[in-house]
């Protein structure tokens, strides 16, 4: 595998390996992600896609190799530190806060951006009102961006339909103005129309300069949206390239797409 690792890449993953009690979950995984780029990560179930996300976002700490965000090594940094450096993610099984409203969910996503002390909060100082005002307006923008502009802000996050919950999770991540956004199967459970508009939204996110890392099973989304694709199988990168290259790569067809063709 020859990957030109440029140190100035937005996200540089090099030679990452993870073992879970004798099982090689990831081995020699290297790739990089640039500003405004959409990088798809595909592979059969158990190929190590979610493990890779967990390594990058700091949930899996025991790994070999290195992950760097904007030139800063992420090794040993806690998940919230990594968020502070500009990385946000969504989860394969939507993880929203069940006792927060739609608006408060997106406000919670701005935790690091809101500048108010405990004193400001407790006694409702001018700074509190100013900060809440900025945060609410940003939240309104982010909600509109993900297509939830029409939703009543006071509705509970959990009361949204499934597709809406996925969009809300993206708004919560997006409102932190990340450098890198990692989406873990955002189209799961969506119909063709919904996943098409999701694809448009992901393109729009990348157009603002955010680097998007996309794990997805829906091949229509992957092939139509991604600039480049990394294919994992049994924890290893078996192919890397543009959607056209991946489509015709014999190793990929054998390991992954071949199953679909044969089915």
């Amino acid at each position, binding site marked *: 595998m020859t990957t030109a690792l440029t140190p100035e890449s937005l996200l540089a993953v090099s030679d990452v390996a993870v073992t879970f009690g004798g099982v090689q979950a990831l081995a020699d995984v290297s790739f990089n992600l640039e500003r405004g780029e959409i990088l798809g990560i595909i592979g059969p179930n158990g190929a190590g896609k979610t493990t890779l996300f967990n390594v990058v976002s700091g949930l899996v700490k025991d790994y070999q190799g290195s992950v760097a965000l904007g030139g800063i090594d992420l090794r040993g940094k806690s998940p919230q530190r990594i968020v502070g450096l500009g990385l946000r993610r969504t989860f394969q099984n939507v993880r929203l806060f069940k*006792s927060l409203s739609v608006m408060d969910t997106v406000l*919670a996503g701005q935790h690091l951006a809101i500048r108010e002390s405990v004193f400001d909060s407790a006694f409702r100082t001018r700074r509190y*009102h100013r900060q809440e005002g900025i945060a609410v307006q940003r939240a309104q923008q982010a909600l509109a961006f993900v297509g939830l502009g029409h939703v009543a802000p006071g509705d509970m996050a959990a009361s949204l339909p499934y597709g809406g919950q996925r969009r809300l999770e993206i708004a919560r991540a997006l409102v932190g103005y990340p450098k890198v956004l990692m989406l873990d199967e955002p189209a799961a459970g969506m119909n063709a129309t919904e996943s098409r508009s999701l694809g448009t939204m992901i393109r729009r996110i990348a157009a603002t300069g955010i680097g998007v890392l996309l794990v997805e099973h829906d091949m229509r989304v992957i092939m139509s949206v991604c600039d480049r694709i990394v294919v994992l199988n049994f924890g290893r990168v078996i192919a890397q390239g543009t959607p056209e290259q991946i489509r015709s790569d014999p190793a990929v067809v054998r390991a992954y797409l071949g199953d679909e063709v044969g089915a």
Partner: protein
Amino acid sequence: MRALTLLRATRRPVPSANTKRALRVALVLGTLGFASAPYWLGGSYFPDIWIDMGLWAVIGVGLNVVIGFAGLLDLGYMAFYAIGGYVFANAALYHGFNLWETLPVGAVIALVSSAIIGFPTLRVRGDYLAIMTLGFGGIVYFAAQNLTALTGGVNGLYGWKTPSLLGHPFITPLDFYPFVLALLVLAALVTMHLRTSRIGRAWTCIKDDEIAAAASGIAIVRYKLYAYMLGSVWAGLAGALFAAKEALISPESFTFDASFFAVAIVVLGGMGSISGVIVGGIFYVVIAEWLSAYTGTLSGVIFAALLLLVVLLRPQGLIPYRPTFDRRRLRRYGLPEPPVAADDYRLDP
């Protein structure tokens, strides 16, 4: 069984604006009437009961920050009540401090001690945290019994100069009552403000899902520590007022039972609900103290039975907390014309 199902939270038809206004007026008048009851009921018995209600309500409001907001089970909460009480007693007895000078000191010491206790304990989760806080409550109780130099041992501390303000001495319970009430109002207001702010949202996130909270940039352990501290400080203040009113402080008031009842008040009233835990504190005093005059130890059984009923039929508590983002906040902070479609989005407004 029909009567029991009526207790369940049911979806009622939306009342009209007039009904709502009438209900609100009735609620305000009722609250004012109830809060001023010691003045028109007179005597020293009623003020005493009302002070108890106020102090237990403050305890409920404080513990509600820890349990209701941040979702941390604290079984040793009354340790901070004890710390506040003993700080006041020592300052009054040996250093001639007045109550008003001691209150801030008690608050600061409750903050510092909760930080010291919370720093190592809040790294553990769930059941383990409950056990560690239980242990801390036990340590403070036995320290109160045995550290005679500081606490007077089982006999406790007493005999300090009567607190006074502007030359007016504080002798009867009615003298203390306004300050208990003021503390309750302050505690309720501050915690209500905290709930709908950056720190309160962080607590809710931690309570609901720690992994998603960390993925939003929230420092889990630090915010748990803040919850523990900002909850404990109210117990410290209430403890100091309690010792001043009783003119005596002894370990009896800080047994495990007391910490258990504090948790029961929060669960009974409604976790996260400020008005709920205040009602919970009042309920507890009515049943555990007032009723015990007629029924003796049976009052404990009644309280336990009531708690069971609430947990079974109305697990959200007597007055459940209903989180929402209300229109008033939206009008105040939101854009005049919020964007609906994605095209209106700007990356950095």
